[in-house]
């Protein structure tokens, strides 16, 4: 990381010099204001290989390499470390983070992680991974049936703990229909 920090200072210096010299621009930002990465790009995934963020990071990196001819290297980090990494690199365009509702919105509200979404340059939401309420086959006839059962009390919902997107979604469903679920906390996916 130290190495990357030095590179940032040098690039910034180049831009400042170019500014003094007129409209020549630096090696990475041309006179008409267009910018290109200077060397390889890192796609930072704040998740271990195999999950939704990792799949997205790898799909995008492969497509980007094909589109641009620039090499894109995917790196996996722990959730919070993968976000904080970018916070330490202001102005560095050669790194792009893969985020989601959990790590960018929900978790920073629930605890102090050392960042909020406003610390970063948010680029694009590219997909929605909708949550569904699922049950054992035949447990309920329909969603209405489940809501009626929950009104009577005693419908249990498996949760993987505070801060996970599914907890937030279960709370929103309960609020929307004026019902209460009995949470049962599980490790990992509640299947």
């Amino acid at each position, binding site marked *: 990381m130290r190495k990357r920090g030095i590179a940032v200072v040098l690039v910034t210096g180049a831009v400042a010099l170019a500014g003094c010299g007129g409209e020549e621009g630096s090696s990475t930002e041309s006179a008409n204001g267009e910018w290109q990465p200077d060397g390889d790009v890192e796609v930072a995934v704040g998740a271990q290989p195999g999950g939704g963020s990792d799949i*997205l990071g790898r799909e995008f990196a492969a497509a980007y390499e094909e589109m641009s001819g620039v090499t894109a290297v995917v790196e996996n980090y722990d959730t919070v470390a993968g976000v904080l990494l970018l916070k330490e690199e202001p102005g560095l365009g050669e*790194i792009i983070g893969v985020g989601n509702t959990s790590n960018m919105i929900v978790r920073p509200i629930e605890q102090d992680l050392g960042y909020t979404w406003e610390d970063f340059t948010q680029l694009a939401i590219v997909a929605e991974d909708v949550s*569904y309420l699922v049950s054992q086959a035949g447990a309920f006839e329909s969603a209405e049936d489940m809501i009626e059962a929950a009104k009577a009390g005693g419908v249990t919902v498996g949760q993987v703990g505070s801060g996970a997107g599914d907890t937030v979604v279960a709370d929103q469903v309960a609020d929307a229909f004026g019902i209460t679920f009995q949470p049962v906390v599980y490790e990992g996916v509640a299947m």
Partner: protein
Amino acid sequence: MIAGDIDLAVLEPTEFLPQVEAGEIDVLLSTGNKPALHEALADVPLASDLGAEEPFVTQVRLFFGAPDLSEAQEQYWVDVLTQWSESDGYAAYIEENALTPQLITGDELDTYISESVETLAGE
């Protein structure tokens, strides 16, 4: 849940589609704001169909850059991501992972995130 220890789980499609196809689980309710494209999910009722008034904050997948990127740097990545979202490869990614396609950038993106934060912080 399949063992009957709990009644419900809140899951994303990649976590449960094989069990739907095996007939082990039923999909009762979508918290999405529009019907899914995936055929196993297309007919699942939306929460709004059943009278939920506020749109739900669901799991979005996004890209973000370092703090204080220049306008040119930001525009570069927004252009790249926009171009990718229009490609066949993107469509295949969405379909394989049973996702809902979205592209939200610029001021609209900041509005979306700040409203989500407001909604969740209020709970």
